[in-house]
């Protein structure tokens, strides 16, 4: 399974440059928001965490629709599906993890830079990083379900994103509220963060199982 992780990462870094694309898109999002807000640095700092989170959520969608489609096209998917149920679920888990390492993690690492651009304080930036670190894997895991469903579709693209976005909303809600709680005083940081972690764990368990079920049904 380490081999699968290594292979998917190798492909991601070699072709398309998923990591770069995600970070650049992220940057673009952060770059245009100030146009609307105007030069109000305070406001920027206030909505900064939300913007970073929204940007990260949207950037995670890039490449997600090809997660299994590419394997189907060259025939690898057959070999992945030819495993017992447990290994199949684990395979999906690993593939989602690889997707996260290639797209999600760079976003987390880029967050401090963007926090700077958004005039966010250190605490705030740290909180966003921490919540992104916990939250973006959840998006990859839940996204795997959409990607698995897309295997039977001639073309994934937008449809996958449409199917995934509503599911990712809880992650966003708690990610953002935990980030805010870290800076606004009366609200405690830990409760929303714990819920976020719980959701992430839940998705990490549910996503691969659901995606595996969809893949089993899809084979033709």
């Amino acid at each position: 399974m380490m081999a699968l992780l290594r292979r998917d990462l190798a492909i991601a870094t070699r072709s398309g440059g998923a990591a770069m694309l995600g970070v650049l898109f992220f940057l673009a999002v952060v770059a245009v928001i100030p146009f609307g807000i105007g030069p109000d640095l305070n406001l920027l700092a206030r909505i900064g965490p939300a913007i970073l989170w929204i940007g990260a959520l949207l950037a995670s969608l890039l490449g997600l629709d090809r997660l299994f489609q590419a394997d189907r096209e060259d025939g690898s998917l057959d070999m992945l599906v030819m495993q017992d149920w447990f290994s199949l679920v684990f395979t999906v888990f690993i593939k989602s993890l690889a997707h996260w390492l290639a797209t999600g993690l760079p976003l987390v690492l880029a967050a401090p830079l963007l926090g700077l651009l958004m005039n966010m304080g250190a605490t705030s930036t740290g909180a966003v990083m921490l919540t992104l670190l916990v939250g973006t894997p959840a998006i990859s895991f839940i996204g795997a379900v959409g990607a698995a469903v897309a295997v039977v579709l001639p073309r994934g693209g937008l449809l996958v994103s449409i199917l995934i976005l509503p599911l990712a909303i809880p992650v966003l809600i708690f990610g953002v509220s935990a980030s805010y709680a870290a800076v606004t005083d009366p609200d405690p940081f830990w409760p929303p963060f714990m819920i976020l972690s719980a959701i992430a764990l839940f998705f990490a368990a549910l996503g691969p199982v659901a995606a595996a079920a969809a893949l089993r049904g899809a084979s033709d």
Partner: protein
Amino acid sequence: MQATATKLKGRRGDSVLFDNLGFTISRGEALVITGPNGAGKSTLLRILAGLLAADSGEFLLLGDDGAALPVLEFAHYLGHRNAMKRELRVQENLSFWKSFQRSDSGEGLSVDEAIDQIGLTGVAHLPFGYLSAGQQRRIALARLLVSHRPLWLLDEPTAALDKRSDRLFADLVRQHLEAGGLAIAATHQPLGLENVRSLELSGIHSAASEEVWA
């Protein structure tokens, strides 16, 4: 070890491709499936590999002690497509499959040995996408060698192979059979194997009679 299909029925959409199909092969035996285009050879192989569900009937792989073995883990499936990533090197592709398809039933060859066996020494460092069609198919065959699995399910294994590679492939299968393996292959061309059983699909499809909606 023995592979037995009983009363298999395969369907695509509303047409039944084959019904009541049965065969048994044991260690050292090969089965060649023939039939016109669209007869259902690939469908049959996918059903045997567990990638498609049969409409009815079953396919069992029995160990030497008579216990049923999971086909998923004891069979190699080689489909029309090669299951290799164009952007990765041959070496990377094969070692990925070697560790991904590791099995308890025995050790496979090393990647370099496998590449030697299919006669492509020296291509290991090339990206898979740089190979010619026949070379790509041969690398796909090398996948069968890097991890040992007793049952081979091959869908037109010799597509795009030149004559020398045809013979080379026949040798590989012969070695596999001699070592106690089993092979089931769908093909349009003689494989150059002796003593194989054969199964011909007629290509005449009947309509599914107990269609749910009708």
